[in-house]
C-alpha cells in the first residue's frame, strides 16, 4: 500500500519531551517518510538533544543544503529556523525569532505545507505558547493532515489549544492514537 504522507513533522515545546520520546520509540525502521522534529531549545548551550530523544534511532541535526532523505529522523538544530526548499533540501535560517522562538515551529510547518502540501502530516504536542498553531493550520489548508495532542493530556495545553482555536480541521488525538497513525503509515 502506498503511504499517504511523504513527510511527518512534529512540533513541541514545554512538556513535550517525554511524549515525543514515546512517539519516536514506535517509529518503524521501514517508515519511508522522513520525520522532521522542531523543539524549542536553549539557544547558546550545546545540548545532546538528539541522543536524549531516542536511544535506538539516530537523530540527525541537518546542515544547510542537506537533502531530506527517506527513513530518517531529523531535529531542527539549536538557534536556527529549519526550512525545506522546493527541491527537498534543508535550508537553515538565522533570522529574527518568531513567536519568541528560533527554531520556530511555525516556520518549519509553513515551509512543509508549501513543499509537501496534501502529503504532509503535522503533529503539535504540549507547549506553553502558540508557536506551531498557524503552521499546523497552513498544513491543513494545503490539504495535509493536522493533529494536536489532546490538550487534556498535555502538560501545557496552550500550544494544542491555539491550533484548535485558530482553524477548522484540527484532529485532537491521544498519544496512543498518534502512535497508531505513525505505525499505520508503513
Amino acid at each position, binding site marked *: 500500500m502506498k503511504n499517504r504522507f511523504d513527510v511527518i513533522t512534529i512540533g513541541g515545546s514545554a512538556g513535550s519531551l517525554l511524549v515525543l520520546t514515546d512517539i519516536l520509540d514506535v517509529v518503524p525502521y521501514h517508515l519511508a517518510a522522513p520525520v522532521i522534529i522542531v523543539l524549542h531549545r536553549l539557544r*547558546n548551550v*550545546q545540548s545532546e538533544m538528539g541522543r536524549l530523544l531516542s536511544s535506538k534511532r539516530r537523530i540527525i541535526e*541537518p*546542515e*544547510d*543544503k*542537506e537533502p531530506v532523505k527517506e527513513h530518517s529522523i531529523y531535529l531542527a*538544530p539549536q538557534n*536556527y529556523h529549519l*526550512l*525545506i*526548499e*522546493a527541491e527537498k533540501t534543508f*535550508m*537553515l*535560517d*538565522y*533570522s*529574527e525569532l518568531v513567536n519568541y522562538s528560533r527554531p520556530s515551529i*511555525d*516556520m518549519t510547518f*509553513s*515551509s512543509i505545507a*508549501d513543499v509537501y502540501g496534501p502529503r504532509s502530516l503535522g503533529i503539535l504536542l504540549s507547549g506553553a505558547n502558540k508557536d506551531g498553531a*498557524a503552521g499546523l493550520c*497552513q498544513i491543513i*489548508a494545503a490539504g495535509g493532515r493536522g493533529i494536536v495532542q489532546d490538550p487534556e493530556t498535555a502538560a501545557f495545553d496552550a500550544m494544542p489549544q491555539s491550533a484548535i482555536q485558530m482553524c477548522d480541521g484540527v484532529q485532537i488525538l491521544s498519544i496512543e492514537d498518534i502512535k497508531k497513525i505513525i505505525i499505520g503509515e508503513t
Partner: protein
Amino acid sequence: MKEVISNADFLDIINIVKLQYGYDFTGYAQASIKRRLLRFMGHIGLDSVFELKYGLVNDQDLFSRLIQYITVNVTEMFRDPGFYKSLREQVLPKLAAYPNIKIWHAGCSTGEEVFSMAILLQEAGLLSRTKIYATDLNPANLERAEMGILPLDNMKDFTQNYILSGGLADFSNYYTARYDNVLIKKELRRHIAFFQHNLVTDKVFNEFQLICCRNVFIYFNRELQNSVLQLFFDSLSSRGYLAMGLKETMRFADIHGKFETVHAFHKIYRRKE
C-alpha cells in the same frame, strides 16, 4: 504569511530589483527570501504581489526599505562562543607568524562579530598589526557598524558569550556605557574598515590570511555558494583560513577538495597550497 508568491512573480521581483537597482538575488535560497518578501509586504501593508512590483518600479524609497528588511541583520557578539575559542587556540597562533595580518569579515551586518574578532586579536597581542576589512550588502548596517554603538540590553548575553569563548578580561573594559547604549572602544575599531561589498557581483579586492563569513551561505543556493567559495579561495593567501557558520558546510560544494578541514564542528577550513 498565508499568501504565496508564485515562481513567476518571484522571478519578476528579482528582475526588477536587478535591472533597476543592481542587486542580484537570483542565487538566493528561495524558501527564506520568499518568506521575507511576504513579511515585508505585511509589514508595510501591501495587499498583493502586484502592488509590490508596482512599488518597486516606481519608488526608490520602497526599494531601500525592502533591502533593509529582507537582508537578515541578526547578529551577536561572540556568537557560538566555542567557535571563538577555536579561533583563539587554533587560528590566531598561526596568524601570529605574519608581519601584517589581513582579515576579511564578509557579511558583517552591524559589526558585532567584527568587534568580537578585534577583541580576540587585542588579547592575542595581534591587533596593532592587523587590518580587518568588514563588508556587507546593506548600507544601513554599515552605517551602524561604523558608529560602534550597541544597545546596552544585549551586553549581559554578550558578556556571557565572551566568557564562554575563553575571555579572561573584564568585558566592560571594551566599551563605555552611556544611557541605553554602549560605545565600543575606539582603539578596537581603529583597525576595522567597513565598506559595501556584494558577494554576488563584486570581485576579489585583496589577499587575506583569514576570511570569516558566517551564516551568509545559508541564504544562497548551491550554485551561488560555489561561486562565493571560489571568490574566497581566490581571496585567500596560500594556507589561509576560512570560517563558516556552524550549520554551513563545504561538503556539497565542487571546490571542497581545495580546502582542508581545521575544525569540523566549528567549520574552520584552510586553503590548500
